[in-house]
């Protein structure tokens, strides 16, 4: 199918892009990697009067440290981030999930930030952003704001972003020492969005016990599911198979999964238990 007609603008600065979005509001749509937007345009699910192409804006494709956090500009392609030593060093969890997004051709165009903005409930980076307490830098004609990933995701393909706003940067905190990360998932096929995926972060204390832990899932409900009930269960405990099995049970008990054509709620709950246990065990092993 072919998109409905639209006007096209390729501003050279973020200010110019924001001015266009402010002027045209809901009639305008920003274009970065286009790997989510173009299918929506082709199917005419979206019919903007103006497409604002961000790709000619200089200075939005940086990967750098800023104030102790890893900063990724809005135009950083997924394939660039997956080759970045800095991403590997500072955010091994994001580094681990990026090669699993679609395929090379998609990742050569698709941006890390765009994946978050389109917020598919199965998407790995969205769950990772919540797990790592990442921040989104949001700019609009009215000014700038910073928002934690938890507050950013509102539901399936719904995020806290006004029509005249853009996410200019993703910021990921550096990990603490003796911290391990892991992502495990079940998907129908290689490169598909996982049915359920689990992100785990485990920090070990000097005594080898879990000083801190975090377990977040994609594909359970419309937003990344933070299995917060497992945090207290793990804190201060020595890592063991029994401990992580109990944490998986707890996460599954706390989950209220959605049923859809790909998987029933019961199957998703089972995946939460099994993948949660495996992700925590792998993260703890890597922390040691």
């Amino acid at each position: 199918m072919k998109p409905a007609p639209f006007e096209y603008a390729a501003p050279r600065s973020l200010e110019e892009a924001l001015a266009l979005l402010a002027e045209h509001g809901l009639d305008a749509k920003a274009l970065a990697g286009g790997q989510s937007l173009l299918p929506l345009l082709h199917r005419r699910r979206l019919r903007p009067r103006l497409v604002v192409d961000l790709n000619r804006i200089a200075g939005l494709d940086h990967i750098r440290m800023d104030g102790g956090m890893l900063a990724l500009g809005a135009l950083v392609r997924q394939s660039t981030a997956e080759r970045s030593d800095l991403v590997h060093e500072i955010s091994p969890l994001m580094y681990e999930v990026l090669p699993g997004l679609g395929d090379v051709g998609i990742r050569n165009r698709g941006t890390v930030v765009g994946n978050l903005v389109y917020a598919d409930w199965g998407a790995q980076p969205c769950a990772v952003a919540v797990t790592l307490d990442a921040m989104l830098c949001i700019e609009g004609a009215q000014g700038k704001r910073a928002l934690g990933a938890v507050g950013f995701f509102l539901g399936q393909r719904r995020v806290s972003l006004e029509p005249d706003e853009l996410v200019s940067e993703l910021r990921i905190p550096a990990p603490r020492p003796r911290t391990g990360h892991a992502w495990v998932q079940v998907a129908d096929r290689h490169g598909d969005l996982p049915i359920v995926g689990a992100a785990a972060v485990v920090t070990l204390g000097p005594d080898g016990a879990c000083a801190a832990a975090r377990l977040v899932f994609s594909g359970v409900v419309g937003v990344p599911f933070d299995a917060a009930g497992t945090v207290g269960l793990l804190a201060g405990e020595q890592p063991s198979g029994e401990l992580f099995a109990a944490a998986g049970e707890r996460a599954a008990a706390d989950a209220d999964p959605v049923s859809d054509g790909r998987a029933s709620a019961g199957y998703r709950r089972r995946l939460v238990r099994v993948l949660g246990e495996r992700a925590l065990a792998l993260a703890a092993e890597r922390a040691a």
Partner: protein
Amino acid sequence: MNVRVTVNGRAYEREVEPRLTLADFLRDELGLYGTHVGCEEGACGACTVLLDGRSARSCLLFAVQADGSEITTVEGLATAEGHLHPLQLAFRAHHGLQCGFCTPGVLLAAYELLSERRNLTDAEIRDGVSGVLCRCTGYQGIVDAVRAADREWER
């Protein structure tokens, strides 16, 4: 809008609507029908081209976005005299195609893969070409062909 691109080493300039995809631009404006259009929504990968050396689905790009870029399509692999590229010879020798619809996309995905790395495992080959669907169920031949090209294509 005005678009200037270099395709397979040749410069082109056209006036197009913003909504024209790069895939349709290559076929309908430039007459380069080697780029095949399957699903038009990014799922099948048949329309894969190289944009400034990197593989991309030409149905998920507007032609206006490619302004100023260098593009390689399947027509750009063989020499002007018609000698097939070593990668194409490997596909012929190892039955890497049946109906041929997906082949342009597979070739360009494999071209990018082998331009970056060599001595690939089968798993790496499969991952590298996983973005292009073949409905003849011909994947084994494709993997055999890319494996052979990995050895035989001297850059």
